């Protein structure tokens, strides 16, 4: 089950996402459903049906989980191929 503790290792496709911060102002505010993911980008399908490709390393995302919780993730944390993220090591203390 997807939880805030395992979201950065989990499959992101299908989740609702919003870009809240980016070094490129044009990306801020893009909102919709994740439909595809590569090592460096996330494809977001907006409500009007258009698809936007957002680079991960310059953006901060708000992912909405099925439980209703919202998790803020900086793009560089999920900067890896989806199948490789499960192997990636994260510092679990802060």
């Amino acid at each position, binding site marked *: 089950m997807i939880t805030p503790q395992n979201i*950065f290792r989990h499959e992101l496709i299908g989740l609702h996402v919003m870009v809240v911060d980016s070094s490129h102002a044009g990306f801020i505010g893009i909102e919709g459903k994740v439909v595809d993911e590569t090592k460096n980008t996330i494809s977001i399908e907006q409500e009007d049906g258009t698809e936007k490709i957002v680079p991960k390393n310059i953006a901060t995302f708000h992912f909405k989980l099925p439980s209703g919780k*919202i998790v803020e993730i900086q793009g560089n944390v999920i900067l890896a191929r989806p199948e490789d993220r499960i192997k990636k090591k*994260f510092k679990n203390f802060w």
Partner: protein
Amino acid sequence: MFYDFHVHGNGKLAKEAKRLGYHAICLVFHSNNYNQEILEIYRKVKKNGSVNSEYPSISIGVEILSKTTEDLKKNIKEIRKIADVLIVHGGNIKINRAACRDPRVDIIAHPYKNRTDCGINHVLAREAAKNEVAIEINMNNLLKSKLSIRSRVLSQYRQITKLQRKFKFPIIITTGAHSIYDLRTPKDIIVLSGSFGMAEKDAFDALYVTPRNIIERSKIREDVIVNGAKIIR
């Protein structure tokens, strides 16, 4: 609004700090003295502080005294849950290094203690800046020393200030008071910090911005999952 984050004492000392112009203080006890009884006394003082206008706002800090890095890691894991501010007793170069590399540590207290150098080098300075670990300048060491020892302490402060200008790690100035006579007003400390080459703005940041950041960081700590990911709601 000024903060003093290294005060060993009781309610009387907190009252005096408020009179001298501190907005908030951190009452610190040592990790080897830690027991439930002491913690209860500190919590009582903290509660008084929140309702009584004679007291400043009070945080509880624990100073970890460890001889080995393994012991330090174990203590940090245990004490991080109970303390608002986590301070590591510096001086040993291995302890300084381990503390600089751990983002759970808030402050390294007097890293220069019992040393001829300042206990921080360019590698540790970079690590401290990355992990936002504040390096403490404890005025008690300066005020309670004499002659050659005082000149050595001043030179160590000067080295820390020089490294801070280059690597931009957070720096914090505290009084390290054990009694009301050890306390100094924020204005005195800012002026005194000029003696080891610290600019007035940097001294102000060390008394206000760094402690405020530590408090803010400790508030959101529970919501952070890993570095760069946190729960919003």
